[in-house]
């Protein structure tokens, strides 16, 4: 509260660069207010690093793909194999790290398609509030929202060939309506704001209004939702892959690793336990980071 009022009295004497630096500093302070946000940042950074450079960092890069070594199959965790080996003799640690890339891709692709698509639908409907376009678009959105997300994703994934791309498609198909809802809400409340009406009066083009006037106002809400959604997308993706409808062997996916590991519980517990913990950690990291970012963006702009 205090921060806000101080800003309000800012005069043009300040240079923009110091103001930006200050904003940045304040954002960081808000972000790091809760120490767990920093833990989240660390986890996510490590995850990103491993996702991007995992192939060069793991002890057995060839184990990520198809590889068979029955002599070393089913070994418990040791200094040679931190998380043990699976029943094909592949290093579980390497495979877990090897799956990060797809996990990351899943989250990024799903959100970077779902958010813009949902945004466009929501804005179009919200901007034309009360017209037929609004009703039609939002009814379609409601249709997708009328079923538990996982159910729809599983149904869609089952129709298609089971692979990573299609599971992304399935998750995206169930995800965009949430962004449509969100930007619909923001847009329809902005619709009556003076500056939008003013922009219309001076004859601004629709794209201008949408991208220059409405988008910046939706942005923080959408961004906050995106960071918070990341963990959830990963959970859904793992669930789909657990059901056997995601990434296919021999390429590793955390969900399918658990699904196949479960068949060998409890004797080969490491096949299940380590991927489970990994999912938990990744999601935890994104949730913590998301909380930090939302408190940062939330206090600053909403």
């Amino acid at each position, binding site marked *: 509260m205090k921060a806000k009022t101080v800003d309000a009295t800012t005069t043009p004497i300040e240079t923009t660069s110091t103001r930006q630096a200050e904003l940045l500093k304040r954002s960081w302070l808000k972000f790091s207010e809760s120490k767990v946000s920093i833990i989240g940042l660390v986890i996510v950074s490590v995850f990103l690093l491993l996702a991007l450079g995992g192939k060069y960092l793991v002890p057995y890069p060839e184990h990520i793909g198809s590889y068979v070594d029955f002599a070393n199959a089913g070994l418990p965790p040791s200094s040679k194999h931190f998380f043990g080996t699976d029943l094909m003799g592949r290093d579980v640690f390497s495979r877990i790290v090897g799956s990060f890339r797809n996990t990351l891709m899943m989250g990024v692709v799903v959100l970077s398609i779902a958010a813009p698509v949902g945004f466009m639908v929501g804005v179009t409907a919200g901007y034309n509030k009360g017209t037929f376009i609004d009703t039609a678009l939002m009814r379609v959105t409601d249709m997708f929202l009328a*079923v538990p997300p996982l159910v729809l994703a599983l149904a869609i994934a089952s129709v298609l060939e089971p692979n990573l791309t299609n599971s992304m498609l399935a998750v995206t198909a169930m995800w965009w309506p949430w962004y449509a809802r969100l930007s619909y809400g923001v847009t329809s409340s902005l619709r009556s704001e003076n500056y939008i009406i003013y922009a219309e009066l001076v004859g601004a083009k629709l794209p201008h209004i949408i991208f220059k006037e409405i988008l910046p106002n939706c942005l923080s809400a959408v961004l906050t939702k995106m960071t918070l959604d990341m963990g959830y997308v990963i959970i859904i993706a793992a669930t789909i892959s657990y059901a056997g409808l995601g990434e296919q062997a021999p390429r590793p996916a955390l969900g399918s690793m658990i699904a196949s590991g479960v068949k060998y*519980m409890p004797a080969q517990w490491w096949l299940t336990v380590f991927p489970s913990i990994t999912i938990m950690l990744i999601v935890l990291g994104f949730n913590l980071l998301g909380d930090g970012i939302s408190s940062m963006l939330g206090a600053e702009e909403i």
Partner: protein
Amino acid sequence: MTIITTIVKRLGGAIVVLLGLSMIIFSLMRIIPGDPARLALGPTAPEEIVEQYRERMHYNKPLPTQYYYWITGVLKGDLGVSTVTRRNVTRDFAEFLPATLELVIWAGIPPIFFALLLGVLGAMYNNRWPDYLIRFSSYIIVATPAFVWAVLFMLIFGYWLPILPSIGGRISMKFSVPSVTGLMVLDALIDAQPAAAWDAFLHLLMPSLALALGHTMQEARLTRSHMLENAGKDYITMITSQGVPRRIINRRFLLKPSVIPTVSIMGLDIASIFGNAFLVETIFNWPGISRYAMNAILSKDINAVCGVVLLFGVIFILTNLLVDVVVIILDPRMRQTRTA
């Protein structure tokens, strides 16, 4: 008055939504490559028989005609025959839905009170050890998918410490409970079989816990943060400055506005319980509609999948409606926006 208009309006919208949903899922299931009739009858069935089956199920007609046959059936309560159970899907629903409802009710309703309790505790002990404990565990629990909990519980309580029943569905074979409500524990009590009720409860414990953990902690977290946020609101300062005791403020003037957001997301929580039930029921062999649906999805049992998706749509819409009504009752502000 406002509540009734809300319900009527929403139900009207729901019909349109459900019709659209039925079209989406119907066409989705028909674009499956391959032959549903062959799939239903197995590899060895003679081609003549398969052709008869195809004819009977209208699989050889154009899509709109198929949809017409199907949707008119659905409106009459006939969802078509499942290829897995070989029975009418409607009948399968009657058999499997109660089990899932029982699970969802146990996983959905009692934990809410637990969630509120934890949330309030967290807020009361803000930044002290109970709060840290609750927050820490909630972070961990929310980050773990329900199916992972199911697998872990199965291992811990079913195998390593075999204290809970791990298979055999809803109740041990030795009990026979006449179905009244379809909810096993309740039925057993109605039938005056406390031992059976206890047995059914034990069967429920693991799957419902696996389903409940995530949303409970999520709700607890939400309640806590709303409690803390609202504690700084002027109206709380105002009522405090009026000399109303802290205890009364917390319990009444702070709790109610803080609980409303939690209640209003319950519809979504119920949806996620239904979704997660897909794998949890499969893992625990729970004879519910989700396990049935999972089977149907994996074996491309077209009628069953369409029926289940539609059923879930209906349940989901009704739950959300119920939640909204509760929110309208709790939150007077909602009445304003509804009537406006």
